[in-house]
């Protein structure tokens, strides 16, 4: 079964090459991308099943033996991340196809969109699967370069402005990561994660702390942890809705994944636990206070994204099995929900012509379906009981109380406060955009009237059915519904999912399953 392991990286890359060859044939490009991503979801699901039955699956790339060559490792954590991220990218792809077709971009296609999107997927998968620090760097670079292109699509003035900040900050974090890699190699003579386990343990404490700090700094910028998060709300909201959605769901989570991996596998023992917990509470509270102050839905959601990264750090910082397991559960939940919310925001922009809350209103009456599609994930994000957001937060709070230290209690309080303020922030969106009377600037009439107007024999008048033509395309609604349902399904399967994340967390904390899988005869 190990031949499956490289496929989530190889297939999107090949698909990217193929879509590049098919430039100018949007229909063929769409089918290639859809096929590739569907296959990736299937492979990822198989990997998840196999890795939870037989332990981590390992492939030595090119047949080079482990410490010399590069290994790809699919353990439970990596496979779980793969499944969730592949499903989310597939849904967002369908959404963007729907948006592209509705905007009539068949005549003027942004033909690099599909190849770049697939390269982004390959980079994300490579980062999850990598069993080698340098390969992790390469995975990061692949996804970052693809994200630069996606963020500046169309190269309009606002996107160039936002892209500049994003590119410069990301480049800096990449250089820091590269320097950290240089230092790790100089002090241990290897970059293979499994081999580093023993070699790092043998290093003097101060040197280890330096290496750990460098890696945390690099990943902290990518994960948008509080003092390093200012770039995110500045750059994400300007991109097209599907791009923002996939960035929000995946890119920061790759950073969180890298933090989880290095903190458990390479630097166990929690020497930076205090640092992680303090940044966690600051990220949560400062992030959500930023969200409360926003008047634009996309910017508000960007701030909730930062804020909820704090929950994951909280779980990692506790270094207990329950904390880590809750953090993994929370990552899965948050990837899904944050993406769904950004897709819903894209629909709001389409329906109401804007995402500025002072220019929206009455959407609940005008488009009840859209209201439901926003309302459910919004409550899920805030952590209202039956939803997965509540379960994840419950796990974290329990882990915090079990820990019992004063800092853990501060985090429990901070976490609950953040949850409450998240509810306040999304309730504000709900009140302003959905509940009050429709704004005079908005396209009038409810969904049925709009549909009748476009379906009718009469040509739509010049202005009304332009870019922000108020009918929502089915291909944009369907993937949003699918993701909302996926988010609800996380509640239904929460029991097995929590067991899975607990298994993954236990394996991470024991470290031996990972090392034994890479070096069956013991590390050299």
């Amino acid at each position, binding site marked *: 079964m190990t031949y499956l392991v490289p496929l989530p990286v190889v297939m999107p890359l090949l698909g990217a090459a193929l879509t590049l060859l098919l430039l100018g044939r949007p229909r063929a490009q769409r089918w290639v991308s859809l096929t590739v991503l569907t296959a990736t979801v299937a492979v990822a699901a198989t990997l998840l099943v196999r890795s939870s039955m037989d332990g981590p699956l390992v492939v030595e790339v090119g047949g080079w033996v482990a410490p010399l060559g590069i290994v790809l490792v699919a353990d439970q954590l990596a496979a779980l991340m793969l499944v969730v991220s592949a499903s989310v990218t597939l849904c967002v792809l369908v959404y963007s196809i729907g948006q592209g077709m509705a905007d009539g971009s068949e005549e003027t296609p942004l033909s690099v969109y599909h190849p770049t999107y697939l390269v982004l997927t390959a980079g994300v998968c490579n980062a999850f699967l990598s069993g080698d620090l340098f390969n992790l760097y390469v995975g990061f670079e692949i996804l970052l370069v693809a994200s630069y292109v996606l963020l500046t699509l169309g190269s309009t003035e606002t996107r160039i402005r936002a892209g*500049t900040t994003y*590119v410069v900050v990301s480049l800096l974090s990449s*250089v820091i990561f*590269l320097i950290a890699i240089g230092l790790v190699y*100089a002090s241990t003579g290897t970059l293979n994660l499994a081999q580093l386990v023993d070699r790092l343990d043998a290093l003097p404490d101060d040197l280890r702390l330096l290496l750990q700090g460098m890696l945390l700094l690099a990943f902290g910028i990518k994960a948008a942890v509080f003092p390093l998060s200012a770039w995110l709300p500045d750059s994400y909201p300007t991109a097209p809705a599907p791009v923002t959605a996939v960035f929000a769901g995946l890119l920061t989570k790759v950073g969180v994944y890298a933090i989880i991996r290095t903190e458990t596998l390479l630097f166990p023992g929690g020497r930076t636990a205090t640092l992680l917990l303090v940044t966690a509470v600051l990220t949560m509270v400062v992030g959500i206070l930023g969200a409360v102050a926003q008047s634009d839905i996309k910017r508000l959601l960007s701030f909730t994204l930062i804020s909820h990264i704090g929950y994951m750090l909280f779980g990692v910082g506790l270094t207990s099995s329950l904390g880590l397991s809750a953090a993994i559960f929370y990552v899965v939940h948050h990837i899904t929900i944050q993406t769904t919310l950004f897709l819903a925001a894209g629909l709001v922009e389409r329906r109401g012509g804007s995402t500025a809350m002072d220019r929206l209103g009455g959407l609940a009456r005008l488009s009840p379906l859209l209201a439901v599609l926003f309302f459910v994930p919004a409550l899920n994000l805030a952590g209202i009981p039956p939803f997965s957001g509540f379960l994840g937060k419950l796990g974290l709070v329990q882990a915090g109380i079990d820990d019992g230290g004063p800092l853990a209690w501060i985090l429990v309080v901070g976490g609950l406060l953040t949850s409450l303020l998240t509810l306040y922030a999304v309730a504000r969106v709900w009140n302003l955009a959905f509940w009050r009377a429709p704004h005079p600037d908005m396209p009038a009439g409810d969904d049925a009237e709009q549909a009748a107007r476009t379906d009718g024999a009469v040509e739509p008048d010049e202005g009304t059915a332009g870019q922000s033509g108020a009918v929502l395309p089915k291909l944009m609604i369907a993937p949003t519904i699918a993701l909302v349902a996926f988010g609800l399904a996380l509640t239904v399967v929460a029991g097995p999912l929590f067991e899975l994340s607990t298994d993954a967390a236990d394996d991470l904390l024991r470290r031996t399953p990972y090392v034994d899988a890479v070096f069956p005869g013991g590390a050299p």
Partner: protein
Amino acid sequence: MTPNLTYVIVIGVLVAAGVTLLLERSLTRVLMGVILLGNGANLLLLTGGQAGGPPIVGTTPQEEMSDPLPQAMILTAIVITLGMTAFLLALAYRSWHLNGHDEVQDDVEDRRIMDLAERDEGPGDADAGSGDDDDDDDPTGGNRPVATTADAGRTG
């Protein structure tokens, strides 16, 4: 293995110069900074491995070979830096095309807050409206940098 002092000094200078340039407003200078920083990081990678003869079996005895792995990694890093340089150049060119300059502009939020502060005659901003275009070696204290960034932002 002890690292070569020359290397260390060169790396230090490259990184210091790179960071200084990275803090500039002009994207072209930022690009130069990124290149210098990248080269510093590459040299650092190189010092991490053992120095010696070419690592080819038959030409050098095994003990005297240099470590090939850092060189492979540097090659990868150089290729990535090359791609990034091309992209940043394109970005700077496009920015110049659109705005007539390639300066990194202020955060939208920052600009809004500064506009608000100006309108309200907010704290410490009373003389910001009459901000002249002199450099930041002006010793008037805390509010001067705020005013200059506000001006830089508004030119965009």
